[in-house]
């Protein structure tokens, strides 16, 4: 039986509307992808799209296999660009937040 890794995922800035209108999710995902590589953020994004997303409009979350422009990914309260972007390898209990930028005023 494959190992799983448990992390906390949060959607905010309106993205929660694509995920059952729920902000906080406890997510269990395989510790390795199909090629035996450790689960990273790219793998998580695919996993979320296939298993957690309830809205059909994937283009509001995904573009070219990664998150669309205007979404910030936060790894334990830091911009993912500080942590290796989608190649960051997930650790148990990581907090991953997907934030859609707001433009209103």
């Amino acid at each position: 039986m494959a190992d799983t890794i448990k992390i906390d995922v949060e959607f905010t800035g309106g993205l929660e509307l694509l995920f059952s209108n729920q902000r906080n999710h406890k997510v269990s995902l395989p510790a390795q992808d199909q090629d035996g590589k450790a689960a990273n953020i790219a793998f998580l994004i695919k996993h979320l799209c296939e298993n957690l997303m309830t809205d059909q409009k994937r283009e509001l979350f995904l573009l070219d296999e990664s998150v669309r422009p205007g979404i910030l990914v936060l790894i334990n309260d830091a911009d993912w660009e500080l942590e290796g972007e989608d190649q960051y390898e997930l650790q148990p209990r990581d907090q991953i937040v997907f934030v859609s930028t707001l433009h209103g005023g």
Partner: protein
Amino acid sequence: QAPQRFGLSNADFKRYGRQLIMPQVGLHGQLRLKAARVLIVGAGGLGCPAAAYLAGAGVGTLGLVDGDTVEESNLHRQIAHSTDRIGMFKVDSALTNLRGLNPNLNYIPHRAHLTPTTALDIFSNYDLVLDCTDHPTSRYLISDACVLSGKPLVSASALRTEGQLIVLNNPPRAPGASEGGPCYRCVFPRPPPAESVVSCGEGGILGPVVGVMGLLQALETLKLITASPDAAAPPPSLLLFSAYSTPQFRNVKLRSRRADCASCSANHTVTESSLTSGSMDYIAFCGVTSPIDI
């Protein structure tokens, strides 16, 4: 002219006494506020409270940019306006309110939306800019103009029950200088798809949510102006506010300048002439299908 002590009148000491006595402001800070020229772009849900508290604190020159007029649907959150000023330019309505609060400042109305051809000219008269607008097109334009003219930018946004705040281009350094703070394009190199952009008219907005964000912009502006000129800039960060979540506030570390940023890197493609010539088309860049006011 009223007699001055240390560069302030007796009335100034009375009016600003409660902030003057704090070590974070002090006489030096109050004099920096008096000398400061601050531009607020957008006199709506963010700009109204930001302007009121900056005027209250004694920012010497306060400019407001907005081409819109006051509508009834603004009044639940745009508290510098009033019911009997519906139809007036927002800039004039807000200045009526600000002059009532503090008549001792120099107020400058700009009764038109900011455009690429006017932005650099307007920004050249100010030291610091607040982005209180409501669309990606204006957010990219304001950031580009701040980088080109070397001004720090205090940017906030709000929608529904949430808000976001970033201080950008702080310290303000020339394009290519890696010690400068990141710009809006460093954080968001590509604009969001047009169909993902939700306005306050479409999504709704809770008044105190956008109000809190505007006040936090005023606060960061006061901190920047009153700080000693050789104080180090804090590391770049983003404040997230969500009125119905626990905790309501979250502080997030952001990246520094992007080595390939179109605006603030050594190889920047956004230039003074691309703005003033009109060759930078922010509406096309953001993929808006029908022309909109920025």
